[in-house]
């Protein structure tokens, strides 16, 4: 609430416009005696407006990378700057605030809360940031209209199709106007038509200069992005720009 004002004064952009910086980032898991190195010395810079696709086979460290970018997990070693702030030193409450304020999550299984209607679901991140009641309601309706669900704001998630649910999730991710939108297989649970809808929305967000990070298996989705990273055994195998 008071920790992070909406104008985000604490987060200065570095001069070259980079939003996210990894410096020799490592993540190890202790599995009994064995130490499992899931991420090894990742160096990565993401700039404002980037549309990045992270690819890689299972076990390559995609999910771990997503968790760290989303501030759900701490790196074992190395530095992680989000908007110029060193995230690796923050405590649990501060990480929660960063997640709510600067990261917008879009999950494969939508993860809407069943007992709340569309508006209330979109309002959740604003509620935890202390946005006032009137403001958050106005903003939620605006976002519902943006993703084309302006006429179903009082419906429950169970009354919507998968594609519509994912659109609500995208609206929710945009609620606090975050620095990055983090999508984990956003079309994984959808039929191709709905999936295409979602990709169109993501493309449109990218055009509006939002920073998107999509983690996926799907080459077609990766095609939509501007930039691709391929992970293998916890390292960046290769990265390139699409256009």
């Amino acid at each position: 609430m008071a920790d992070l004002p909406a104008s985000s004064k604490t987060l200065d952009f570095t001069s070259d416009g980079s939003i996210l910086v990894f410096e020799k980032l490592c993540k190890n898991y202790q599995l009994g005696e064995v130490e499992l190195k899931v991420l090894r010395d990742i160096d990565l810079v993401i700039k404002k407006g980037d549309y990045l696709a992270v690819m890689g086979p299972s076990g390559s460290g995609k999910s771990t990378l997503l968790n760290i970018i989303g501030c759900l997990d701490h790196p074992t070693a190395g530095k992680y700057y989000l908007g110029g702030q060193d995230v690796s030193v923050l405590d649990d409450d501060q990480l929660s605030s960063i997640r709510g304020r600067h990261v917008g999550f879009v999950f494969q299984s939508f993860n809407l809360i069943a007992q709340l209607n569309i508006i209330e679901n979109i309002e959740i991140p604003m509620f935890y940031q202390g946005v006032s009641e009137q403001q958050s309601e106005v903003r939620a309706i605006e976002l519902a209209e943006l993703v084309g669900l302006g006429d179903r704001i009082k419906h429950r998630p169970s009354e919507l199709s998968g594609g519509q649910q994912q659109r609500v999730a995208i609206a929710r991710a945009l609620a606090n106007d975050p620095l990055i939108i983090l999508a984990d297989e956003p079309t994984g649970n959808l039929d191709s038509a709905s999936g295409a809808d979602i990709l169109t929305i993501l493309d449109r967000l990218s055009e509006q200069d939002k920073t998107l990070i999509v983690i996926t298996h799907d080459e077609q989705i990766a095609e939509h992005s501007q930039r691709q990273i391929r992970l293998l055994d916890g390292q960046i195998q290769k990265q390139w720009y699409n256009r």
Partner: protein
Amino acid sequence: MFFYRVRRTVKLGIKSLWLHRLRSTLTALGIIFGVASVIAMLAIGEGASRTAQEQIARLGSQNLIIKTVQPPEDQHATGQQQSLQEYGLTYKDAERFRNSIPNIQVVVPVRRVSQQAWYRNRKIPVEVIGTVPWHLETTPIRLIMGRFLASADMDYKQDICVIDEGIVNELFAFDDPLEQHVKIASDYYTVVGIVSSQSLAAAGTQESVENNDAKKQAGANAGSIYIPLTTVKDRFGEMTVQLSGQSGANVEKVELQEIIVKVANVDLVVPTRNILQTLLERFHKKADYQLIVPLELLRQARRTQAIFSIVLGSIAAISLLVGGIGIMNIMLATVSERTREIGIRRALGARKRDIIFQFLSETLILTFAGGLLGICLGCTIPYFVTHFGKMPTVITGTSLLLSFGISGAVGIAFGLYPAYRAANMDPIESLRHE
């Protein structure tokens, strides 16, 4: 802003509880019955103790009452055809008390006789109380009209009487009783005054305090008539003759039925009791007296009440504890059932304390709703107890506040751990939870 957060969280809590209506209701039942039992038990306990204490207090806390009782060995006549039993308190006893106890305020010797009273053609059973002018100092009975007995009445053995309201109602429905003549046995007595009813005519022993209702039902006396002690002695004598079929006549001689001793203040009651005890033991070989100390009865009643309250309180507390454990159990189940929701909320920016607040408020809603319903139920039970069980009950404001406070405390105590568990779940794990 804070208000909005609270309102929102409470609304969400109600929504979640409503989603599992049956479960929530069953969970709240524990608290409902716990709170209801606290209130009902306290009300019954309070009612019982208040009645007992009122009855004892009416005897007067500065009084010591010595009553004549029939000595146990005399109860079966010793084979004689005609036996004269002489026992009980005497005028000498009263005299001795007056002379040998320094801090005594008044001594009231009392003689009681059961008789019939006539006025015109109406007849009622009454208790004739032969007493002294300062009798009123020892009881809460008030003079309503006219005057009470005077020293001159005593000296000249006047045929006058003071009647209580009970008799006024029974005998003098339409007449002004003052200056009328009431016939008791074979003599007429002029009514000079009216006093308030002595609702506890024979109160004195613990048993009579408890069995007061039973005595009223036996209901021999419509009321009491006060007559100078000297007059009573002259008119009614000191002998009672009982005719029984086989053993013939049984004659008892009793001078006084009761001596009431009043001391200057409450602190003197116990030392005076000891002196009285010694005097009585020395001059009465038979156990034909009973010493009643209302103050001690009162203290004893309070002690009993304290124990009673503790016992009732513990039983009620245990039922609340069981209710609380039930709540905790359900909340733990709820938390694990909603693991994914917790993960989502954490990812969307909820801090640990937000999660704690959310689950704690759910528990509190449950316990407060249960507490309110429990209070309603708890207030109804004493009503039925009074109505059907003929037992007095008193619901005090303290017991309501107490039980409401307890239900809140139970909510916090048993809601905190599940809420804490919820808040400390790993967000990554919870998001993966199916």
